[in-house]
């Protein structure tokens, strides 16, 4: 396998894993965050604190937990998922979820309540209220997703543990940089580092374009 082919595979796998896990975590996180941010209840404070704690969970700890669960001796061992891209997506989704969840609650905040009040006044159903809130807070929610994606594509500890950094199989950009640095191949490491930055820029550019075009579309 040539260097070029290997790098291409590594970049695609990185993108695939980060995007998939961001999408999964964003769907779950936002759907849960919206009702919680609109209601007041006794446990709310603690849920928010807990999600903030999990936002700063060390990725290697998450890696260890997922490793033990997916290992053949672990509870989900029969699935044979350890050292596969699926295991990496699971670990990443779990890492990104608290970020999306916590940030979404604060992003929707008071604005969501105003929308809810208006919706109730206009006699909208719950489903319509939810959709309207998502539409109105689209820009904030997209930047929340971008933050989640940032965590996911730049993370190295968890994917190294549950993926195993297998060549052509579970090697992503961050673990590739770690490996090449360890072997003294600094040129290769820097090349991938630059690509990593470009990819992050591109994805954020696309997300930004998405929020802008949709915002305009609504007004027209």
């Amino acid at each position: 396998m040539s260097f070029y082919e290997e790098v291409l595979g590594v970049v695609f796998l990185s993108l695939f894993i980060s995007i998939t896990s961001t999408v999964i975590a964003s769907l779950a996180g936002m759907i849960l965050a919206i009702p919680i941010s609109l209601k007041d209840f006794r446990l709310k404070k603690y849920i928010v604190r807990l999600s903030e704690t999990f936002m700063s969970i060390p990725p290697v700890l998450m890696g260890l937990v997922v490793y033990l669960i997916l290992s053949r001796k672990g509870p989900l061992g029969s699935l044979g998922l350890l050292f596969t891209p699926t295991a990496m997506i699971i670990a990443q989704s779990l890492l990104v979820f608290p970020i999306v969840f916590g940030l979404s609650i604060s992003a929707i905040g008071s604005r969501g309540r105003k929308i809810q009040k208006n919706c109730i006044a206009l006699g909208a159903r719950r489903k319509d209220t939810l959709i309207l809130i998502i539409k109105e807070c689209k820009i904030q929610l997209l930047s929340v997703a971008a933050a989640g994606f940032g965590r996911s594509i730049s993370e190295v500890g968890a994917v190294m543990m549950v993926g195993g950094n297998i060549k052509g199989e579970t090697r992503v950009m961050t673990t590739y940089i770690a490996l090449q640095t360890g072997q003294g191949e600094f040129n290769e490491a820097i090349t991938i580092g630059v690509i990593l930055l470009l990819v992050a820029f591109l994805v954020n550019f696309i997300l930004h374009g998405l929020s802008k075009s949709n915002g305009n579309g609504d007004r027209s």
Partner: protein
Amino acid sequence: MSILRSKSSFKRLLTVLLCVVMGITVAACSKKQRTMILATTTSTQDSGLLDYLLPLFEKDTGIKVNVLAKGTGEALEVAKRGDADGLLVHAKEQELQFVKDGYGTERLEVMYNDFIIVGPIDDPAKLKEKTPSDAIESFKLISSSKATFISRGDKSGTNTKELGIWKSAGITPTGNWYVSAGKGMGAVLQMADEKNAYTLTDRATYLNMKDKLNLEIVTEKGSQFLNQYAFIRLDDTKNKIKTKEANEFIDWMISSKGQQLIGEYGKEKYGMSLFIPNAKK
């Protein structure tokens, strides 16, 4: 209108992009290839041996070997938990214990090379002059002159070997001069280079990285330096693993063809074999 059009064209672009990504994913997932996971040591990867052998093995059998490069200690643990199908490591005592504990059914020696002690070119502890071939005496000298020594510190085969030599020398290495790195062989060589330190390494990894290092061999070829690599056939009654693929790989490596290929690796580039095949026929 123009805004509307730009919106839809952006969405179309996005849809196309998504389809491409999904298409590639599906294509990547649908290939039905026989695969296996080989838990092995960082030295077989960092020396470039597996990168050279595995494509040839895949060509012969169609089996893709996924390499999990860890220290020997970790590789053994991974295999104990049933997360690997094959095991190629280099720490005899630990391997024999592993088989004795019933995790493996057979230990097969496949190749060897040797350990060496490398250090900064100015050689502050004067190992090159005083102890050019005795590992134990060299370690004593490093410790008495408090020259910086980098230990793998990761329960790998090299680390096990190193601790054994300290034990034979009757020294418990502690102090600022003894650095426990917790990293793979390549990274430790880098660190030794940066810190002007001594370290114990296998010859293959050192030769493969020599051009990037300001480190020289200071002690070599003593009787303590043998570095034997062995396969372990894992017990598939303990865990559901791919024994068939693993056995095919082991048999290929110890066959005369595999052995010949191992012996040839490195000859062109370094003028010598990095691993010397010694499987029992």
